[in-house]
């Protein structure tokens, strides 16, 4: 009943309004009648009645309050009024909305990445019940683990963590556990596959998965069927499921694709299904395009990590990955049974793991060096991307948060200045009975409206820039596929940020401009503030505090940007030890088409010859790993006569190694120091030779290195290879790392160890222009083989620096933005101060101050503010930059040059911003100024 009444009073608003007016008018008329009856004249009577009645508008307002919809009505009024106020000062509105849009847009853009990387759950059934399994141990788990594919990383507590397990453990876990309703396994590394369809080659990102993969996740196919355990046996007919995106790109959404045959690394597979559009796998950022049953591994990836266990290469190749207890290569995700907790699941999985490894554990092994199960929430998928980007994203989030604070300070300053010109309006409204809380609410509505507009524009800016940001996050060799969409989280975040900023920058000006001494405010002109001098000082004080804060925050961001930019230039200036200009790289894997042994070696020799014959080729070579590509190979190396004292248990030293073809050092431009390089006479028929770098010679050889011997298969092998040359140091996998001791083997001397090779072509001109010709050469040799990782060496180095470039560009951009906003703040507050002091300046000039002195006076004031801001900013920067120390290269977080440079830039910009109002002050005509009020 009451609710109904309330609703009616909302709907029948104007009728009720009229009734209220009628009722009050009746009251007034009765009073007038009474006054006339008491002997007054009609005019007198009306006047007396009105005076007794008081403020009719206020009375109406109070009666209306009782109807209960006032807040809504007021909101409507406030919004209308706010829009009107905005239209009246378009310049102010534009500057305010633009600064807020930049601040809020930057926050939304970074947050949408945070959302996509850190917050989104997998698009699968009931993701909350999924858990990811991993293990942790102190050091390398001796005895139980021989080879590991996938990732391994240190946790904070000095342990190694890896998600990779052996296939037998997966089988045991699946059959013996009582805590999981299903368990899936997949290869720890996804791999690029050659995908042939109707005779045309192409490449796709493939992943080997168990037959339980789709059932465990609860993903139903969009077309056809998904993989079942029956598809994942050694004798199953080859079947594959493709992603929706790949179906679209490669097959034009042909619904008849189900049942068709494609070739994966030259093995025919039947496409049995297409995944739903939103499903990308379980690793955010990595979009899998083809899912293949695990048991197809011997056919699809016959030479997987052949060198992971070199001492045992032959035996590993023979024993299947599916039986080897010591080869850990599958990643597991499981679905908890209803009612089972993560702790219960961990306890049972731990028992099964310890049983599985028990027979391989040597007596006396400390328990903490054995692997122990960890169970983590799997609702967001595997955490590779989160691990990689959570710190960079946190830093960027902090940066854009500071930008938003600076923008808020700016708008607050603008509002304070505008508040002065609206003082008379406020005074009038207070005088005719508006409550202060009501005015504050209205002013806050206006600022929130400003912020909301800023938020809307910011949202548009954000969605323009997110694709760019995702592209920034990708390096060519490791692309990040993220769908960043405006989901409710992002929209909610933007709305919350907008409203909060509106209140943050609006509250203080609103409180200030409604705290008035009414009489002088009404009497005086709008230019002269109606405040006691103490209040005036305080108001200027708040504006100045805001400017100091802006300057210090801007400086903080500038220092951060400077550190990242200098890190990037330091890295780009690193001497890699070889000539990276005019060098084209490409990879090829002929083993996918059945080449091996001597035939494979001949294939590579022929390809080298044909590429060398191309016009535009200066020279060509090949190597197992490209340089500065992130990949490397490292083996225990046994040097004859080292170490001199037999302290170590087996005498092996850890060194990097690379299989290189003839002319490798000549092609890359790595100088020879001693002896000879590897040439085309170093084949399987010749004595085995290696070349080492100076770092290796310095650490392990001493004396004359040429002629010394080393080996890779235990102490007894140390005579296998003869060192024939020493070359200068060249960086291997990473520009940041020092040149490692490196051994270069002649790849053609070991045809059975040959696998994928990467070619390096020294070109006469732009390497990218050689690409079509090189592709033709490879096609002519074998049309089934696709080239991969085709790029220039400069491009490849650029890709390894992508995170530094990301930081340098983004923080540089935000630093400049902060500088700009800070300058607007300085300009605003100084211009405001000059306007208010026009009369004072006039008096000073009338008393004989020169223009120069006035200019100096205003500039001095600006500089004082900026100096305080810079001092605070430097202190903050010294503290904050320690957080990013691990991301820097070649300089310390408190790098004095960067800090001084940032401070200098800040001073220059602020002086420029302060010069404009200072000049205006010095141009004041004393006569005009004295008559100013």
């Amino acid at each position, binding site marked *: 009943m009451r609710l109904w009444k309330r609703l009616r009073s909302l709907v029948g608003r104007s009728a009720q309004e009229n009734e209220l007016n009628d009722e*009050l008018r*009746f009251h007034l008329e009765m009073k007038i009648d009474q006054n006339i009856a008491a002997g007054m004249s009609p005019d007198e009577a009306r006047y007396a009645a009105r005076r007794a*009645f008081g403020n009719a508008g206020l*009375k109406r307002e109070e*009666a209306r309050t*009782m109807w209960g919809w006032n807040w809504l009505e007021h909101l409507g009024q406030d919004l209308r009024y706010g829009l009107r106020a905005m239209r009246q000062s378009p310049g102010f509105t534009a500057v305010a909305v633009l600064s807020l849009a930049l601040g809020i847009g930057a926050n939304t853009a970074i947050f949408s990445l945070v959302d996509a990387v850190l917050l989104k759950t997998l698009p699968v059934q009931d993701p909350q019940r999924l858990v990811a399994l991993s293990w942790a141990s102190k050091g390398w788990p001796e005895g139980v683990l021989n080879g590991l594919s996938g990732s391994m990383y240190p946790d904070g507590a000095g342990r190694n963590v890896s998600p990779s397990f052996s296939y037998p453990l997966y089988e045991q876990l699946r059959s013996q556990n009582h805590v999981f309703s299903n368990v899936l396994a997949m290869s720890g590394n996804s791999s690029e596959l050659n995908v042939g369809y109707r005779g045309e080659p192409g490449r796709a990102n493939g992943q080997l998965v168990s037959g339980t993969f789709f059932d465990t996740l609860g993903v139903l196919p969009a077309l056809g069927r998904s993989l079942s355990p029956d598809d994942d046996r050694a004798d199953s007919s080859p079947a594959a499921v493709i992603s929706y995106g790949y179906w679209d790109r490669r097959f034009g959404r042909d619904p008849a694709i189900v049942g068709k045959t494609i070739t994966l690394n030259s093995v025919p597979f039947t496409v049995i299904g297409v995944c739903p559009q939103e499903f990308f796998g379980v690793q955010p950022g990595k979009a899998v395009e083809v899912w293949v049953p695990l048991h197809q591994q011997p056919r699809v990836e016959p030479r997987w990590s052949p060198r992971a266990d070199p001492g045992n290469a032959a035996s590993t190749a023979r024993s299947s990955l599916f039986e080897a207890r010591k080869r850990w290569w599958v990643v597991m995700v499981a679905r908890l049974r209803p009612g089972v907790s993560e702790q219960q699941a961990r306890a049972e999985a731990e028992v099964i793991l310890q049983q599985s490894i028990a027979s391989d554990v040597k007596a006396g092994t400390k328990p903490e060096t054995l692997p122990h199960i960890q169970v983590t929430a799997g609702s967001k998928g595997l955490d590779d991307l989160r691990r990689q980007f959570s710190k960079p994203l946190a830093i960027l989030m902090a940066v854009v948060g500071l930008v938003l604070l600076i923008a808020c300070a700016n708008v607050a300053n603008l509002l304070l200045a505008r508040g002065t010109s609206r003082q008379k309006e406020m005074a009038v409204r207070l005088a005719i009975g508006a409550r202060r809380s009501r005015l504050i609410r209205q002013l806050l509505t206006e600022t929130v409206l400003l912020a909301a507009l800023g938020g809307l524009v910011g949202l548009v800016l954000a969605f323009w820039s997110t694709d760019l940001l995702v592209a920034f996050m990708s390096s060519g060799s490791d692309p990040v596929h993220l769908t960043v969409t405006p989901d409710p989280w992002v929209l909610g975040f933007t709305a919350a940020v907008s409203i909060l900023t509106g209140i943050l920058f609006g509250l203080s000006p609103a409180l200030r401009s409604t705290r008035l001494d009414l009489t002088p405010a009404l009497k005086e002109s709008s230019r002269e503030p109606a405040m006691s001098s103490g209040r005036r000082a305080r108001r200027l004080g708040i504006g100045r505090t805001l400017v100091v804060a802006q300057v210090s925050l801007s400086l903080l961001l500038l220092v951060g940007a400077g550190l990242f930019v200098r890190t990037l230039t330091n890295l780009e200036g690193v001497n890699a030890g070889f000539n990276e200009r005019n060098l084209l790289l490409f990879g090829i894997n002929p083993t996918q088409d059945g080449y091996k042994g001597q035939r494979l070696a001949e294939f590579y020799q022929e390809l080298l010859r044909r590429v060398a014959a191309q016009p535009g080729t200066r020279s060509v070579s090949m190597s197992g790993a490209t340089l500065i590509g992130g990949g490397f190979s490292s083996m225990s190396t046994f040097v004859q006569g080292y170490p001199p004292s037999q302290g170590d248990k087996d005498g092996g030293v850890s060194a990097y190694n690379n299989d290189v073809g003839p002319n490798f050092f000549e092609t890359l431009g790595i100088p020879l120091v001693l002896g000879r390089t590897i040439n085309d006479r170093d084949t399987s028929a010749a004595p085995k030779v290696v070349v080492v770098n100076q770092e290796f010679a310095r650490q392990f050889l001493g004396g004359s290195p040429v002629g010394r011997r080393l080996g890779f298969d235990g102490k007894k092998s140390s005579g296998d290879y003869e060192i024939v040359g020493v070359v200068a140091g060249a960086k291997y996998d990473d520009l940041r790392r020092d040149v490692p001791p490196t051994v270069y083997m002649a790849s053609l001397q070991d045809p059975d160890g040959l696998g994928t090779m990467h070619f390096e072509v020294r070109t006469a001109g732009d390497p990218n222009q050689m690409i079509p010709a090189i592709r033709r050469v490879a096609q002519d040799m074998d049309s089934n083989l696709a080239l991969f990782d085709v790029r220039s060496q400069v491009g490849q180095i650029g890709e390894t620096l992508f995170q530094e470039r990301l930081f340098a560009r983004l923080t540089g951009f935000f630093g400049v933005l902060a500088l700009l906003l800070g300058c607007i703040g300085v300009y605003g507050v100084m211009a405001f101060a000059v306007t208010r002091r026009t009369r004072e300046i006039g008096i000073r000039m009338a008393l004989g101050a020169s223009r120069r002195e006035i200019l100096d006076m205003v500039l001095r004031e600006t500089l004082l503010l900026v100096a305080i801001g810079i001092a605070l900013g430097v202190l903050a920067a010294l503290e904050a930059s320690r957080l990013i120390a691990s991301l820097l290269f070649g300089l310390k977080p408190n790098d004095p040059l960067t800090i001084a440079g940032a401070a200098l830039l800040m001073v220059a910009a602020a002086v420029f911003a302060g010069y404009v109002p200072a000049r205006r002050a010095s141009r004041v005509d004393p006569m005009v100024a004295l008559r100013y009020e």
Partner: protein
Amino acid sequence: MAKDELQGALDLLILKTLARGSVHGYAIAQRIQQVSDDVLRVEEGSLYPALHRMEQADWISAEWRVTGTGRRAKYYKLTAAGRKQLVHEEEAWSRVAGAVAKVLRFA
């Protein structure tokens, strides 16, 4: 207590006045003033908000009628809920008044 009780007092005066029959707002103010020998004056600023609040609470209902002088006026009368409220408020008031009287006597 003060504010609630004073508002309670205004409600009580209005309800009591309306207990004698339906009247318009001006008459309510007049009657309270007359009956209290000009001691209690009800401000318009308090009267109409109170009437509208009590109408929302369903203690009183209103209808438009024409007065003896030919003017349209809004007449209020008690509802059943209003009568109950009147009894309740009267009891509350006597209790408070009694308590105040006791304090004045003994304190």
